């Protein structure tokens, strides 16, 4: 990992540890205050625990122009961003995409191209609905590896993370503690419940928290939709297409809508927020990834709306191409943060238990 980022985070953490005024904002400070000296692993854990709510920055007596020049949200964002690249498997892919919006766009276009090609080259004989464009077997042949590879990659990344931060064996109670934190984004509430400082300097609002939860729950609903459909296909012998009031459609439509709204709001917020309080060199990558995720939702909704029109084959190829790019890029883009954040929250529950 980049030693200058770690060194800067260490310098700042030592000053924070002598002050402690911010301990009521989030989980980072109690964890920070439990240490006296900060190893690279400690800093990596703190960095991934930090949700970039920025409360500590605006409350800080020591921000520039003060000579201590504290900017803990940025120092931790730099370490965090760097850790995702370092833990990625393969590492080269992490370095290629994390900070590179152009590479993400390029991968997405390649996804479109692959699906258009597949639709043409693997033309089906006699499928119904979407399967008339691309057979179910062809879809499985493309998406099964595109789903399993990121899972494997993430698993390797998390293992590397766990070794770096010195994590202990995970018990169910650790997981439930972490999930309850993530489920309502406790760490974006500022401790007092007023929210975080993101869109308008030191004003506390819930905008980012709500946008994030729309994305998170939108994504989970979409994922549930696909999972339910897969089960219906294989277990109940009920192949697509499904009606409006079927489980896959209800889940998918609500999830897609949330995803689109959440990503749109998040991009709007990120464009308003002060970029110097995050990892500045990752801004393009983050925005582009959020755009891709929103586009997955949007193209899915368009596909539903235009499913019976002549546009359907093109819409299907575009939607599936975006989904493919999204899956394959998951370990190497901002999407990875969800997994590392969960790991950090689990580790924090362990720390509190041990403490």
């Amino acid at each position, binding site marked *: 990992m980049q030693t200058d980022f770690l060194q800067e985070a260490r310098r700042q953490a030592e*000053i924070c540890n002598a*002050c402690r*005024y*911010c*301990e009521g904002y989030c989980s980072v400070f109690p964890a920070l205050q439990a240490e006296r000296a900060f190893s690279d692993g400690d800093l990596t854990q703190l960095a991934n625990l930090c949700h970039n709510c920025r*409360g500590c920055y605006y409350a800080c*007596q020591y921000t520039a122009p003060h000579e*201590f020049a504290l900017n803990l949200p940025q120092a931790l964002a730099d370490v965090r961003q760097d850790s995702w690249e370092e833990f990625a498997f393969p590492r080269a892919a992490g370095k290629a995409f994390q900070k590179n919006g152009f590479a993400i766009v390029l991968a997405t276009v390649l996804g479109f191209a692959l699906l258009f090609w597949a639709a043409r080259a693997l033309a089906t004989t006699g499928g119904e609905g979407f399967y008339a464009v691309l057979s179910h077997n062809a879809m499985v042949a493309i998406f099964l590896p595109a789903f399993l590879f990121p899972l494997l990659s993430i698993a390797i990344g998390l293992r590397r993370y766990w070794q770096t931060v010195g994590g202990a064996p995970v018990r169910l109670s650790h997981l439930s503690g972490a999930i309850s934190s993530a489920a309502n984004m406790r760490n974006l509430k500022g401790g007092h419940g007023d929210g975080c400082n993101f869109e308008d300097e030191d004003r506390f609002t819930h905008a980012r928290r709500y946008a994030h939860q729309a994305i998170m729950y939108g994504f989970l609903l979409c994922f549930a939709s696909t999972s339910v459909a897969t089960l219906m296909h294989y277990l109940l012998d009920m192949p697509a297409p499904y009606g409006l009031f079927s489980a896959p459609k209800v889940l998918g439509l609500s999830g897609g809508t949330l995803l689109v709204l959440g990503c749109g709001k998040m991009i709007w917020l990120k464009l308003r927020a002060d970029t110097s309080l995050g990892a500045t060199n990752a801004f393009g990558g983050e925005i582009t990834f959020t755009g891709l995720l929103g586009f997955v939702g949007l193209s899915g909704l368009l596909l539903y709306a235009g499913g019976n029109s002549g546009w359907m084959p093109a819409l299907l190829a575009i939607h599936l191409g975006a989904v493919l790019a999204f899956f394959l890029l998951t370990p190497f883009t901002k999407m990875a943060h969800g997994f590392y954040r969960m790991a950090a929250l689990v580790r924090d529950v362990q720390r509190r238990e041990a403490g």
Partner: protein
Amino acid sequence: MTDTPDIVVIGGGNAALCAAITAAEKGARVLILETAPKPYRGGNSRHTRNFRCMHHGPLGPLVESYTEDEYLADLMKVTGGKTDEQLARLAIRTSEECLPWMEEHGVRFQPSLSGTLSLARTNAFFRGGGKSLVNAYYRTAEQLGVDVLYEAAVTHLELDGDRVARVDYTHEGKAKSLSPKSVVVASGGFQADTDWLARAWGPAAKNFLIRGTPYNRGVVLADLLDQGIAQVGDPTQCHAVAIDGRAPKFDGGIVTRLDCVPFSIVVNKDAQRFYDEGEDVWPKRYAIWGRLVAAQPDQVGYVIIDAKSLNLFMPSVFPPIKADTLAELAKKMGLPADALDKTVAEFNAACGEQSGFHPTELDGVATSGITPPKTNWARPITEPPFYGYSLRTGVTFTYLGLKVDENAQCSIGDRLVSNLWAAGETMAGSILGQGYLAGFGMTIGTVFGRIAGKEAATHAN
């Protein structure tokens, strides 16, 4: 703002903001003239962290009760009676209604910070510290239509008989004047003017560090005192504590404190001990050490500890100087090595039974046969690596201020100045004549800020 405001508030910290908010809520048009640039707004309030509050039963983050009499007794203890009991009781009694007022105006509290459990009953901690309080008040003030000028330095208040006729200030390089109906002075003490400090305290003060804002230079205070406005508080005194000698000249704040003295020996630049390091627990002694260090040559002290004591105190902002031998440590710290060796050897030889060592209680583990003695926590300095910190005197605030009555109103001779009120550190000497009581400065600022704002608005309306 093109029109003349009803009220000019001089200063931009807690007291100024409480005054401005209160006045604006009464319908007055208020202008704040803050001499600091925006990132440094808020004076010493930026560095505060809590509010000492009377209460009957649990209130907000506060547990149990803290009665008026107990609060007053605490004040009497630290001031040695140097207070105005009537004003003190007013501040104490009003503090209880201030806490909900603060919350209504955007301040958020949190449970007592770790390591400060002893204050959980008496002091309400601001979530995020004093700067977050200041931020919240600026937000509230702006919503109420209060105008704020940063880098607006008031140079002179022109008195005309018993009223302030004109406020002179500079802004963006230009001299400007306003003639508001009411003026509230809430611009702190004079501790950042080290020339003034040196005149008051003696030349040693040039070597003091200023723990808070560099903008509290006492310009308005001096201007008013020169014109005969009634004064209060000892003009020669300041509250000073011993802090890390490597701290910045200004604005080092909380992180420059050093809590390791009880586990150390402290020597001067000649490597000689000069006071009992274990006299009492540190929170009761750090102010004394500010004065002790100020009395040493070059106003500097050197704390020496060994490896076994390193984790017994709160980490401070800078890592200690570290060496494997005392000679090397002496060299790194610029101390005479032979003399340090001798001092440590004498101290070590004077240490006795240590089995009763207890870092957080007066343990009676004492030296025998040396002067000065160390009466608690006396363990020999033997275990390498050895660690050192330099100590300097850090000034927190000054006591000289404007004398006010229970309406926060200033006077000249035996008359009230009809449109001048003061709040916060600039009048705190009326109540805190000496010593220090954690969180009481914010109480005085909040109580008298609100009174001043109300009175100023009533006058203006």
